[in-house]
């Protein structure tokens, strides 16, 4: 091969050692995108996929038609849960670094996604999360202790030791079991929503995938089925710019926003500032109402930034500038909401710090409690015999005899 390759290779704007460059991000001023009626025709919504719905402006004011008009109490709720998410993540990260859990993944910088959307959905709506949606579980009532016990695979682990840390589920909270396989939850959400419609109920479903995961087949299947049957579902793409070391351009994000991915199937797409709790809330509520009234699916792209490493197994300094997050033009969702609340006059740095302290204490207390149910090095221990259960509704003979054999061997027989 002598000739020069003509293949076009997408490249991030900056690599380690280079100056972060977010010039590729199409931004829009807060309040500049219109808010159509929820029964607007799909073809009249196309522009929402290339705009950027924002409510909080640079001066920390809430602006424009998408402003949900939160009262101080609602703002507090949003801030509190985002902070709890962050404080929890920080602690669990530390704990993993100390070798006390095997693995962890943070949502740092993306907390607004789960919290705002959880606030906008109704309790009967079903969530099909990705691994970066721990905020959904928290908001929907899974206790910190239970989440920690899952990460510890201890005697109180909701997964009975079967899943990697962070692969939570909550039946009572209507949050589906997290899978290690990217994107598989997307068609589940659509099927769940179809069933809701078939049953004549008005619950809707929502699901989340990352920018990178949009390339998977399940993304296409979900969009196709949702469009064909007008399933009452919200399909969220959390565009945090990175998929491990691969930037979003490798999933086609440089060509058109992810919000546009469903347009060819007639699915409206809304691109929203993923670090703006108020904007996300409003957009989600709009899409939920639309779905509930028979308007079918909406695809929401949440533009944000993965503030931390992909997981505890990852070292992002190998592939992106160290300080990229600091230059991210949409900032930090917690800081932005805090400043807004301060600007509104019912919050302060002091209050903020003491809330953080309070939450840290809460997390510390939870960690103490969680460890009582067992750690990686100390009991009590889960009964290994349970590993043969729940493979089927009833444990068949072959698994029963394998269980016996395993216990014999464990006892050295």
């Amino acid at each position, binding site marked *: 091969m002598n000739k020069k390759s003509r293949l076009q290779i997408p490249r991030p704007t900056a690599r380690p050692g280079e100056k972060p460059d977010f010039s590729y991000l199409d931004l829009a001023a807060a309040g500049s995108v219109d808010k159509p009626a929820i029964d607007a025709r799909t073809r009249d919504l196309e522009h929402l996929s290339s705009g950027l719905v924002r409510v909080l402006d640079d001066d920390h004011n809430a602006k424009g038609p998408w402003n949900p008009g939160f009262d101080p109490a609602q703002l507090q709720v949003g801030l509190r849960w985002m902070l709890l998410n962050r404080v929890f993540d920080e602690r669990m990260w530390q704990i993993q670094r100390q070798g006390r859990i095997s693995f962890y993944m943070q949502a740092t910088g993306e907390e607004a996604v789960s919290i705002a959307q959880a606030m906008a959905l109704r309790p009967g709506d079903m969530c099909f999360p990705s691994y970066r949606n721990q905020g959904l579980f928290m908001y929907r009532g899974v206790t910190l202790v239970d989440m920690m016990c899952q990460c510890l695979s201890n005697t109180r682990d909701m*997964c009975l030791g079967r899943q990697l840390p962070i692969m939570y589920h909550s039946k009572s909270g209507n949050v589906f079991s997290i899978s290690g396989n990217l994107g598989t939850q997307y068609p589940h959400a659509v099927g769940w929503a179809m069933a809701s419609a078939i049953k004549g109920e008005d619950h809707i479903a929502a699901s989340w995938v990352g920018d990178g995961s949009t390339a998977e087949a*399940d993304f296409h299947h979900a969009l196709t089925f949702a469009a064909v049957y007008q399933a009452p579902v919200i399909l969220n793409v959390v565009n945090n710019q990175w998929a491990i070391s691969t930037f979003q351009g490798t999933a086609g994000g440089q060509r058109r926003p992810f919000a546009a991915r469903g347009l060819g199937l007639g699915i409206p797409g809304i691109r929203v500032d993923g670090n703006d709790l108020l904007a996300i809330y409003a957009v989600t509520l709009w899409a939920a109402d639309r779905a509930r009234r028979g308007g079918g699916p909406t695809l929401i792209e949440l533009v944000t930034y993965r503030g931390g490493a992909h997981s505890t197994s990852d070292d992002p300094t190998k592939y992106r500038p160290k300080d990229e997050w600091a230059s991210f033009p949409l900032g930090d969702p917690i800081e932005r909401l805090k400043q807004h609340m301060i600007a509104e006059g019912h919050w302060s740095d002091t209050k903020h710090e003491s809330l953080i302290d309070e939450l840290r204490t809460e997390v510390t207390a939870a960690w103490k409690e969680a460890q009582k149910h067992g750690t990686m090095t100390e009991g009590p221990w889960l009964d290994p015999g349970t590993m043969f259960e729940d493979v089927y509704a009833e444990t068949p003979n072959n698994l029963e005899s394998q269980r016996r054999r395993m216990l014999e061997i464990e006892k050295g027989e």
Partner: protein
Amino acid sequence: MAQMNMIEAIRSAHDIMMDKDPSVVVLGQDVGYFGGVFRCTDGLQRKFGEHRVIDAPIAEGGIIGTAIGMGVNGLRPVAEIQFADYIYPGFDQIVSELARLRYRSSGEFFSPVTIRTPCGGGIRGGQTHSQSPEAIFAHVTGIKTVMPSNPYDAKGLLISAIESDDPIVFFEPKRIYHGPFDGDPEKPAVSWNSHPKGEVPEGYYTVPLGHADIAHPGEELTIITYGTLVHVAIAATKETGVDCEVIDVRTLAPLDVATLVASVKKTGRCLIAHEATRFGGYGAELVATVQKECFYHLEAPISRVAGWDTPYPHAFEWQYFPGLKRMSAGIRKVMEAQ
């Protein structure tokens, strides 16, 4: 009692379960208005409406993926994959999701999906309409793998599958949809009309999952098989004059080991037969299990009669298919061994 072929029996199972349980829904390609390319769902949409019998886009992964979601929301989906050869685009959803959902959520979530799919050759379908991929599913823990060999079992097993809270992959050997087949393509087609297993109750009944059937009792040699080859094995019994016990496995996973072992302990000889490619096929597991449990009773090596380790060739369907000749040769070989 009515006389039914396998298609009618399968249709009847759907009909009864949809009547009995409003949460049963059917989805798949061409299953609705048209009633399925093999007619297994014919009439169901007219009776139960297009909200319960749903024509789906051509996306096996999407069909299975959305069926899982429906199951999580309290429905009992029966998904048809038009040919087993086309199940692979849905493989990830089956293996990574359907099979492991109950386990990974420690029983909080599960999805009782039944996946029906016609398998096997003998209809001149060429390499992409003839496959028998059951081994691949039987190896995946968390799903149950079923293959009936006659109308009575088809209906009873399908009802059990639909009622089961476990996910099921239900293979239908299409060569015997209309009649049993003894493996000799030269002979005129036979219908289920005159076959005792074509007598099928019109109402509800079940054949339990996890139980093999002694399709033909015998003393000299045990043939363990399933699907179309059950009939070939019985024919070969007659042709060879060897008094074979033919066991129809019916549920491939979890396997009814006791029935197989009892038979081989009695006969001392064992032949295993399936239509799928031999290497790494389901028959290997049968050999492994039987030799372990019956080692001291075996008078001859366990033999396998199976499809060759090639794709299923259109022109050489009958050279590929393990028919009467190969089955009889297999029986003789096991009998000759000392």
